[in-house]
C-alpha cells in the first residue's frame, strides 16, 4: 500500500485475484474504486470480466456522485505455442491493469510498454 498526496494505491497480487470468482473480483474492484482508491492489478481481468466491470460501473453512476472508472490494461498476448494452437486457446495471459475513479485519475495514458497515470487532487 502506497500513500501519495492523500491517495491510496493498492497493488493487488495475482494470487489474491486468483482466489476470487469473477463476480467477487468485479465487486471488489468497484467497491475499492468507489472509495477513491487506485488499484494496480498484477494480473489483468479476462475480457468477460472487463465487460461485466463496465456494465456494473454503468449501473452505479450517479449525478454528482460516482462518475465511473478510468482503466487501462494491456491486450492479452496471443499464445502461438503449439499447445496453445491445438487447444485453440487464443488468450492465455492478461497483463498489468490500472483502475481508478474517473474523477481522480485524470489521464491514464498508455503505449506498448508503459501506463502512466496522472492523479488529480481536485475533484
Amino acid at each position, binding site marked *: 500500500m502506497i500513500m501519495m498526496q492523500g491517495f491510496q494505491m493498492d497493488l493487488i497480487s495475482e494470487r489474491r485475484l486468483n482466489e476470487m470468482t469473477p463476480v467477487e473480483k468485479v465487486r471488489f474492484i468497484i467497491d475499492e474504486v468507489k472509495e477513491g482508491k487506485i488499484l494496480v492489478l498484477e494480473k489483468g481481468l479476462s475480457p468477460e470480466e472487463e465487460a461485466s466491470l463496465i456494465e456494473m460501473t454503468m*449501473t452505479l453512476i450517479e449525478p454528482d456522485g460516482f462518475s465511473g472508472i478510468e482503466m487501462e490494461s494491456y491486450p492479452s498476448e496471443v499464445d502461438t505455442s503449439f499447445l496453445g494452437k491445438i487447444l485453440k486457446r487464443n*488468450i492465455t495471459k492478461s497483463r498489468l491493469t490500472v483502475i481508478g475513479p474517473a474523477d481522480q485519475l485524470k489521464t491514464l495514458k498508455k503505449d506498448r510498454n508503459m501506463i502512466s497515470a496522472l492523479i488529480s487532487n481536485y475533484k
Partner: protein
Amino acid sequence: MGVIKRFKKNFSDLFNKLFKKQNARIGIYGPPNAGKTTLANRILRDWTGDAMGSVSHIPHETRRARRREGVTIKTNSNSLTLDIIDTPGLATKIDFHEFMEQGMDETESKRRAKEATEGVIEAVKWLDNLDGVILVMDATEDPFTQVNVTVIGNMEARSLPLLIVANKVDLPESSPSTIRDAFPQHPMVAISALEGKNIDTFYEEIAKRFG
C-alpha cells in the same frame, strides 16, 4: 434430374424458405463519436437506400442499439446478407457535466447521462448475440484504450471475426498506422465514413471476414 432428386431439391428450397437460416449479426462497436452511426448510415444508404440513425458531434448520440435486418452487400467476389447492429458508444465513465458543456441544461444533461449509461449496458449485452464485430476507431485519437481492448478481447475469447475500421482518415491529423501498430493481429481498413473514402475496400473486407 431424377424424381427423387427433384423432390429433394424442391423440398430443401421449401425448407429454406420456411426456416430461413439466420443472417450473420454484425455489431458496429467503438467509443462514442468514432463514427459508428455515420458508417452504419453509409452502409444502409449504399445497399438498402435508407438510414440507421442520427449523427452528432456530441458523444452518446446513440443511446439505444438499432438493428437493421437483411442488408445484402455485393462485392466483386461475393454477396452476403447481414443484420447490422449500430450500438451506443462504449465508455467506462459518463459525467453529465460534459453534456452541460455542450449547452444542454442540467435536467436534460442528467437525463442524457442516464440514457447513455443504459446504452452502454445494452451494447455490452449485445456482445453475447453477435457473429462478428466491426470496431470503429477515430484515427485522430489514441487507440490504446480500455474500450478497444475489451471489445477485441471479447471477440478473441469467443473466436469471432473482427474488422477494425480506422475512421476519419479525411482529417490531416489522422494516423491509421498507429491503429494498425496497436492491434497488428487483426485486419484493419482505413476509411472516411463521412466522405466515403476507401469504402469499396471496406466492403471487400466485410465479405472476406463475415462472408
